[in-house]
């Protein structure tokens, strides 16, 4: 009802296909037989969370294609199996982009996996996360019903915000079919400045910068160097570049891509890698290992430490949480408190009463 099927500005691809009905039939059957299923997109983010207990898998990559895109509306609607690269290319042709800079972690990355994991790149603190851009979604719930929540408009408070809830739910609350996302114009100009400073100074710097309206769209620190990306109108970017100083980075597009895709040596060399999410002003963490900071200090990457208990304890004291990206851990996502787990299982049950959608993919309990 709220999704149009206009195909203006979208490229036709012979592989585009709407297989929602057959996916729903498969889920209905799984529901009736209580057969757990693993929802599979491009399989680029399998390392996140747990592997899950389902043996049968539901391949959604056949459900692909841009359903509607009108740049003037700042909205794109696409099927979950659409390669992320196709979506970004379609947007770029009209001078627009997904402002949360989703990491790919592989060429096969799909829109569905991007939303299901709610991953965002360096722009996150400045523009928002994947969840912030979700306007609506068509899903299959655990009973095999096709449901539509939200829409293609900027503001919509009719009914609970179940489409946004799908972001970061790892497919445990529904199979994503189509997602409508808000998109934004690409900045007209961009430049990155680097500064030599230690981690304490960098944290202080990030906090101070955050309190002033600088046109900053990424801030990263690694190995004694802070990187600030300035973006916007060329006039304001060059004005900020002058006042902030520092040394200009030559190939900054590649640099930020490497940060986003974890291609910097800190990431590629690490045998164990933890993602620590904290309040940005959190001081240097007293945890062994090599650290990098993204998101103006709100994201700390930790390489070379596999002491799960120690890390979790320390990070909890700071009010943050820790996710393992590489290495061993008894729970890959940060464990939930007892009462929160109870809410989660009840909510899971409300959308997937037979517990067949990606069971165990986030936590062993559901």
């Amino acid at each position, binding site marked *: 009802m709220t999704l149009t099927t206009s195909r203006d500005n979208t490229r036709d691809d012979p592989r585009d296909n709407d297989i929602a009905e057959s996916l729903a039939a498969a889920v209905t059957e799984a529901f009736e037989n209580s057969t757990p299923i693993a929802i599979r997109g491009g399989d680029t983010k399998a390392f996140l969370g747990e592997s899950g207990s389902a043996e049968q898998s539901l391949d959604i990559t056949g459900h692909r294609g841009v359903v509607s895109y009108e740049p003037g509306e700042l909205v794109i609607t696409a099927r979950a199996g659409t390669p992320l690269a196709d979506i970004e290319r379609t947007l770029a042709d009209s001078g627009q982009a997904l402002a949360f800079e989703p990491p790919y972690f592989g060429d096969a990355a799909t829109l569905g996996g991007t939303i299901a994991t709610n991953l965002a790149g360096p722009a996150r603190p400045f523009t928002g996360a994947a969840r912030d851009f979700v306007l609506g979604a068509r899903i299959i719930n655990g009973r095999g019903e096709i449901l539509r929540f939200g829409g293609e408009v900027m503001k919509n408070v009719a009914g609970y915000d179940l489409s946004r809830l799908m972001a970061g739910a790892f497919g445990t609350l529904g199979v994503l079919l189509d997602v409508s996302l808000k998109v934004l*114009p690409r900045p007209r100009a961009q430049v990155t400045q680097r500064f030599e400073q230690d981690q304490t100074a960098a944290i202080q710097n990030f906090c101070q910068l955050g309190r002033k309206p600088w046109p900053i769209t990424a801030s990263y620190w690694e190995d004694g160097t802070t990187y600030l990306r300035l973006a916007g109108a060329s006039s304001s970017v060059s004005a900020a570049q002058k006042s902030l100083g520092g040394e200009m980075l030559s190939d900054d597009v590649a640099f930020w891509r490497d940060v986003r895709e974890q291609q910097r040596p800190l990431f590629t060399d690490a045998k164990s890698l933890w993602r620590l999410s904290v309040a940005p002003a959190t001081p240097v963490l007293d945890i062994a290992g090599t650290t990098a900071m993204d998101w103006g200090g709100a994201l700390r990457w930790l390489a070379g430490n596999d002491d799960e208990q120690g890390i979790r304890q320390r990070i909890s004291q700071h009010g943050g949480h820790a996710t393992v990206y590489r290495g061993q851990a008894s729970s890959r996502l940060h464990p939930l408190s007892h009462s929160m787990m109870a809410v989660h299982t009840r909510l899971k049950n409300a959308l997937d009463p037979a517990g067949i959608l990606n069971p165990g993919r986030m936590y062993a309990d559901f």
Partner: protein
Amino acid sequence: MNQAASLFDPAEHAERASPPDKPTIIAALQAQLPAEMILTEAEDLRPFECDGLSAYRQVPMIAVLPATIEQVQATMRVCHAMDVPVVARGAGTGLSGGALPLDNGVLLSLAKFNRVLDIDTQNRRATVQPGVRNLAISEAVDHLDLYYAPDPSSQIACSIGGNVAENSGGVHCLKYGLTTHNILQLEIVTVDGERLTLGGASLDSPGYDLLALMTGSEGLLGVIVEVVVKLLPKPELAKVAMVAFDDVRAAGDAVAAIINAGCVPAGLEMLDSPAIIATEEFVHAGYPLDAAAILLCEVDGPAAEVEEDIERVREIVAGCGATDVRISRDATERALFWAGRKAAFPAMGRISPDYYCMDGTIPRKALADVLIGIGELSKKYGQRVANVFHAGDGNLHPLILYDANNPGELENTEAFGGAICELCLEHGGTITGEHGVGVEKIDQMCVQFPAAELTQFHAVKAAFDPRTLLNPGKAVPTLHRCAEFGAMHVHNGQVPFPELERL
């Protein structure tokens, strides 16, 4: 006018086992809370009988005004144990009857939760109690050159708790987002009195995004008792262009053209001719009285960028047939241009005894068509309408002018409002962009959502509140209600909910 009787389908609550009588409930509450926090007499309860949608009134059985989280928990435990429904209330400015009390329920006012608890400059966040007024947050951090971005037009009065419950927007949410984009953490009390923390100090938290689910849930999933909001640095410069058009269609097209050109204004508002005339007479903001529509387009950010963008806006609107463009020269003039917009609601109150503020969102490209459609409906229903709204978001607020003293006029107004909702849906929109469903749009929910979606909503509700004690009868209609509504209301020739037996 008492509409509550027709609003609440008694059958919806009939299965509830008959709860204890009022004195028993009062005694149970008194055992937990100081006596002065419990109001039971008609004259004390009267102030709570309605919210901003004053056509609907109902005095609650009891009102409770707790001052601590523990007292909220105690209240919820008593009500839960006795099966008494609870309606939370912030400032009561809601426009969809969300805080309308129940005659057999407790009205839980969060008015005493009015303190800013913590301002964390380093992390750019503030911890506030739910009854704190929206504007009071920005005022509390003004000296730090920070502010809280969502700015509903009611911001001097509405509470942050109510903002979260409604996922409120404002003039600047085109660029800065809605409430859901500007909060970090919520403390809630569940229906059975348990305390939960949703979200956290970091930019994301483990597990499901319950922060998103709670935002906009209209008091149906839990009571919000503490909110951590994001603070933003004040922009270096803001300028507003006041653009006049002699044709509504040209104004609507200019909105799309601005967005198409790659500009994201901080705010992009539209007033049509009746709204311009009423506000101009009231505040003298300098709006051209002969214009068919004006746009207020605000650009903010680094100074150099603002200068560049406002000139682009000038060129774009000129190309769209603008008859006059004025750009604010300083902060005083900017405030003057906005003064008209901000006074639009009270201005309507001066030209009509009553007005009914509608709320729907449509794709921007449909703006002109829908505005013209509303004009046609206005003729059909024989009632005047003025439009003042968030054009950049496609969020319409038609104000239907009426006089409740004229017999039948309120009913006619509501029918007109319902027709506007459906017009929005026909253009790919939604029945509410920011005011919520409450009791007002409960029937239109049947038009927007099929039975399966509504059933899913009820299942989600049950995960938090299995006995539907929190704000029952609001936001999500029962299928039976929809079937009854459908019986008198056939949409596009299709009977909604054909699978349900008509009662």
